[in-house]
């Protein structure tokens, strides 16, 4: 079995402004690069204060990275993954809320999103260590949450969690709360270019804008955007190539024609999850759009399937210049 890692250049956010009065900060966490622009023009913050705000957000991301990473041997998730089904594990309020959110989103996406996909990542060779047999295993109800005792218990020893499809969106939602608390009115944050949060306006008093392909721009005033690609990481086995996105309903790598799915939503966590779910199950676009969100699916770059009740998508016949 051979795995190949390829970069995932899902989206190229381009704040449409003069960046001179913004304080950019970038850092590596959650397997990607986060970049932040804090608007100093419209808030009562000095440049040093803006940098301090960015550092505080970095601390928040590092904190959750340490808790949720499957690559940190003593993270809470790694401890869960090592535990057996009889073990009742305590949860603090922050974690309980996260698990509850994941449970709700699993239901909302009809099982196309499931944090127990870590089980499948392991079984199909996307994780280090021996593959585990999936015989007789169901991940439909991977754990039991006890709201009274604030505990979580696996339903099967083999269940392994992976928050990869929601972690960045989840921390972006926390960042939004923190920024609001600090009085920051204008900010643009992205994690790995695939999870984006835009608060307020850019320097030109316009909505922050991200491009998601040639000629397609998305206005993101107060909204978040999640982008998923089905084939950013692949593994080949017996001459067949599989994408890294798992379909929890079939317990196998997802197989469909969607190359990229984009979701714009008020919640960054939901945006991330819905974009992943649509990669797994494109037919969800009709049912998920009952939420106030915009969904764009790309089978190829030229003809996106678009559902845009938010009216945030702008399609131009002229290619934009890449201003990187």
């Amino acid at each position: 079995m051979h795995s190949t890692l390829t970069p995932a250049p899902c989206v190229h956010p381009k704040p449409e402004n003069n960046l001179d009065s913004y304080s950019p900060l970038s850092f590596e966490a959650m397997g990607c690069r986060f970049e932040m622009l804090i608007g100093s023009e419209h808030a009562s913050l000095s440049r040093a204060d803006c940098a301090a705000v960015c550092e505080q957000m970095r601390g928040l991301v590092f904190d959750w990275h340490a808790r949720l990473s499957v690559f940190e041997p003593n993270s809470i998730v790694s401890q869960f993954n090592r535990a057996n089904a009889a073990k009742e594990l305590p949860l603090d309020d922050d974690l309980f809320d996260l698990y509850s959110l994941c449970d709700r989103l699993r239901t909302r996406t009809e099982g196309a999103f499931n944090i127990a996909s870590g089980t499948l990542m392991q079984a199909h060779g996307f994780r280090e260590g021996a593959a585990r047999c999936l015989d007789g295993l169901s991940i439909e109800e991977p754990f039991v949450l006890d709201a009274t005792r604030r505990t979580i218990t696996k339903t099967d020893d083999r269940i392994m969690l992976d928050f990869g499809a929601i972690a960045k969106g989840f921390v972006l939602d926390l960042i939004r709360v923190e920024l609001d608390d600090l009085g920051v009115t204008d900010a643009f944050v992205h994690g790995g270019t695939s999870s984006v949060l835009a608060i307020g306006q850019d320097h030109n008093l316009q909505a922050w804008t991200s491009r998601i392909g040639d000629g397609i721009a998305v206005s993101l005033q107060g909204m978040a955007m999640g982008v998923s690609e089905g084939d950013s990481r692949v593994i080949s086995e017996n001459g067949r190539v599989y994408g890294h996105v798992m379909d929890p309903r079939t317990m196998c790598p997802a197989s469909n024609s969607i190359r990229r799915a984009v979701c714009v939503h008020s919640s960054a966590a939901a945006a991330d999850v819905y974009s992943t779910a649509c990669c797994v199950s494109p037919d969800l676009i009709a049912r998920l759009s009952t939420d106030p969100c915009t969904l764009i699916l790309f089978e190829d770059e030229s003809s996106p399937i678009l559902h845009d009740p938010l009216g945030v998508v702008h399609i131009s016949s002229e290619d934009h210049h890449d201003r990187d």
Partner: protein
Amino acid sequence: MTEIDRRMFLTRTTGGLAAMALVPELKAFGGAHLLDQTLRVGVVGVGRQGREIMGELGKIAGVSVVAVCDVDERRLNSGLRRASGAKGHSSVTELLASGTIDAVAVATPTHTHREVAVECIKAGVHVYLECPLAHTKDDCIAISEAARSAPGVIAAGLQGRSNPVYQLARGFFRSDSVRKLISMRAQNNRKTTWITPSNDPVRKAALNWKLDPLRSNGLAGEWGTQQFDVFHWYTGKYPTRVVGNGGVRFYEDGRTVHDTIACSLMFENGETLGYDATLANSYGGKHEKFFGSNAAIKLGWSHGWLFKEADAPTQGWEVYANRQQFHNDEGITLIAGATKLAEQGKLKEGVGLPNPSVYYALEDWVASIASGGSPACSIDEAARATVVGISANDAIVTGKTVDIDLGGI
């Protein structure tokens, strides 16, 4: 014996055992302890450091964070979200009066340590106190005196002393691996503003005590103390004089606490420890180095390396030791718990500690409570290191040579 068998034998026995045998003071990696009953801990001060302490305490079997305390309501609320079922308190007096705790971990600002620590020690609970120990020498003495008659285990958070890599490296140092000690250096470089943001001016002033020269001992005191103690612990000596300088070289925001410093701590026998720190550049991060005539030791908190001179005597196990290249130098990786890992064929997996240093300090404290033994770092040791840090800051701020007076501790 085949080559592979021989290599395996050497790796699993000679190399690992040599590392262990040279380190009589190295505690068992993993810090087994046996508490009679759940240790109920209250955490005082739940800013970033306090919340980290809460997270690390959560990893230790038999420990439960049952209460959190902070005078800042927002921090108290975020702390409570990290300790399900815990009770919140806005004062230490209220926390201690609740009668629900056996132990307290203190992570409040340095200048508040005396008041908090003395009250907790007098209440008879076990206390873990973050370092630097206090803001002034008088405060250090007050805490030290209170600790002397304490019924509980009072541990100070000079984390090098409980860090498995540092314990291992100290064994090498004290077994003469570096031979004649020539010089010592340490640095702490981080790109950070040192500002805690808030849009409430009163709250901002309270949170940003590190930038207030009346409440802060600057980079030498707040950061240097942890690192100075490594040298005290390794050499068994304290510097007697310090000279230094510093300035605000980068942050033009009106601050007066230096963002960049350098100092030289001098020992009685002529040995010198050079230290520098900055908030403007992160290159090299935080580390300590010992230069000897046979070898140098570099310590980076989660990692440690031994760099041998070409003419230093070779020991058999070194051939199979894990190594790391640094430009023209090759370091032998110091791996805590090498014997056990080698037996499992997992020596390389032991490179780097799986937990942050504060975990081992807390684990050592809990183990001391369970065993009734002494913690790795006593309050007196922490008081001495803190006074060294305070003196270094005085030298940097005044530009004068300062005699380090450890009398009274």
